């Protein structure tokens, strides 16, 4: 027990350190931060949605406002919400992968991959809500898995709470919640009491949490029927978005079909001198990401052969989340892949430890960590030697911040 706590604590503080370093390198509001921070104030204090995209659920504003009230409206306070949720995702993925694979080594590998992933680190240092949404989704999945294996009802209630929070952060978790409900109903189909409890935990509880985050909006005088109409309006506006409504730089990051098969990156030049260059990069780590789909496929095949719903879980959830993103007509940016990463890394961790010789796995892990180390200075705004990174700079579109 003590060893497990020590491992979880070590993972958390390792991930926290990677995300905290140089966090206030840019003190002023950067990129979308101005909109995110402004919306946190307007929503928490007035119940209005601007200036950020109004159609997303508003829990992100309340959490951001809360951390700014605790830690200050400065670079650290603004980014602290994501730093904490991002770091907490690492030990949580350890627990999730361990439960899925029954392997501590696979769990450690998966946790190390998410701890060092350049995209996860970048957005853990930002104000985008995808980091807390990814954490809550993974938490819900972990509790659902626990609930499927244990008699106690509390894990399912905890799962409902986590899914409710995730849904109140971003709608894209809805298909996974539906899948979790279907799975739980199927597991409990013979027991009416437990079936009814699943409705309470996975339907009523998330609905209550989702509705509760709109209380500041209701405080502007709205009625329940107007809330329903507003939800319809939000869905309509969200589904009618087009690439023209976004900045050109972000459009480089659109296209879910490329996330796991290409190098997706955009840089923001921050200057440099004497052969050193500083920029902020939004990037996947192709060395690791290209192994995600094969690892999920291998895991799913193994699960099918062993008739193991546990091993099948990550691939099914990954597909449930990813396939809708592939078919929607609106632009989907690479930060929407963040909830997929823990599932992908779970599969990669399993593949490294279960499906290949130990020496190959160690070598692969070393390559993964080295590639992450290569990207690390670029997502944390440290200057890098121009000569070493020239091949990357030549391939990546680099914007100049306005």
């Amino acid at each position: 027990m003590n060893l497990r706590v020590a491992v979880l604590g070590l993972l958390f503080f390792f991930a926290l350190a990677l995300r905290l370093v140089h966090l206030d390198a840019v003190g002023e509001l950067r990129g979308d931060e101005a909109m995110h921070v402004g919306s946190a104030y307007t929503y928490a204090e007035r119940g209005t949605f601007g200036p950020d995209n109004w159609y997303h659920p508003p829990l992100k504003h309340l959490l951001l406002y809360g951390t700014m009230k605790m830690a200050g409206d400065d670079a650290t306070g603004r980014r602290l919400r994501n730093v904490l949720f991002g770091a907490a995702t690492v030990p949580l993925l350890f627990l999730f992968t361990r439960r899925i694979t029954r392997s501590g080594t696979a769990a450690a590998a998966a946790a190390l991959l998410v701890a060092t992933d350049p995209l996860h680190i970048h957005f853990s240092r930002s104000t985008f809500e995808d980091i807390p949404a990814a954490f809550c989704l993974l938490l819900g999945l972990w509790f659902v898995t626990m609930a499927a294996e244990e008699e106690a009802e509390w894990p399912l209630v905890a799962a409902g709470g986590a899914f409710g929070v995730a849904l109140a952060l971003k709608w894209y978790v809805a298909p996974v919640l539906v899948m979790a409900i279907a799975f739980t109903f199927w597991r409990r189909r013979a027991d009416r009491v437990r079936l009814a409890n699943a409705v309470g935990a996975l339907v009523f509880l998330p609905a209550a949490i989702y509705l509760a985050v709109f209380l500041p909006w209701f405080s502007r005088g709205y009625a329940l029927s107007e809330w329903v109409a507003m939800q319809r309006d939000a869905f309509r506006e969200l589904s009618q978005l087009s690439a023209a409504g976004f900045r050109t730089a972000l459009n480089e990051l659109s296209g879910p079909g490329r996330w796991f098969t290409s190098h997706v990156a955009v840089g923001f030049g921050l200057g440099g001198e004497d052969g050193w260059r500083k920029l902020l990069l939004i990037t996947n780590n192709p060395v690791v990401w290209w192994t995600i789909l094969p690892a999920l496929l291998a895991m799913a095949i193994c699960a099918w052969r062993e008739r193991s719903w546990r091993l099948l879980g990550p691939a099914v959830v990954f597909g449930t989340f990813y396939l809708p993103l592939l078919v929607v007509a609106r632009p989907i940016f690479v930060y929407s892949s963040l909830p997929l990463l823990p599932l992908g890394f779970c599969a990669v961790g399993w593949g490294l430890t279960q499906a290949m010789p130990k020496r190959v796995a160690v070598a692969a892990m070393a390559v993964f960590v080295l590639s992450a180390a290569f990207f690390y200075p670029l997502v944390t705004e440290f200057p890098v030697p121009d000569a070493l990174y020239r091949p990357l700079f030549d391939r990546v579109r680099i914007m100049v911040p306005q």
Partner: protein
Amino acid sequence: MTRFWPLLLGLALLVVVAAAAVSTGAAARHVSPVRREVAVASHDELLREWRQAGAKGRVVLLFERRPGLDRWPPEALSTWARGKATAPATTPANYLYGAIQEGIVRGIIHVIPAPAWPAVKERLARVPGFTRSGPGFRTTTEGVPLTVVGEEDLVRTGEPPLVVADSRYAAAYRRSPRDVAAVCGSDLLVTLQGAQ
């Protein structure tokens, strides 16, 4: 019953939150018990009248050529919300947006004169972002609903609205804004006299 605790917990929470939402919304709407009609010279004065009347969480019935829903620039809204700047100047183009930010207005019904309605209707059917809503059209500004409706199709608002009438366009309407305000039970009719 204790075997059903997750069901009961979820259900109870949902009922409590829904009740809290309903009562929060109702408590936030403030309608003056006294009916008034005032004439003002500018939209700035109009906002002052609304503030003085203590209007909160209200629906506005608009007898104007255009709804003043131009958004403040995002940076201006952000810095104002953070208490680091004053609100942008009130103009005919943005006064309703300002009233939304202040919590005075929560919904807008823009009434179009009957003679102009067929042409407006045809145009709105082609404008992206507008959808059919009953006899009129609906769109939103940062989630705040704007309903555009012909005066002949105007039905009861369901609650006493704030009414705004621009005297320059009063003749275009078949029904006077004063009659409509009386029928709807409005507590405050503000007439803009020669506003730019």
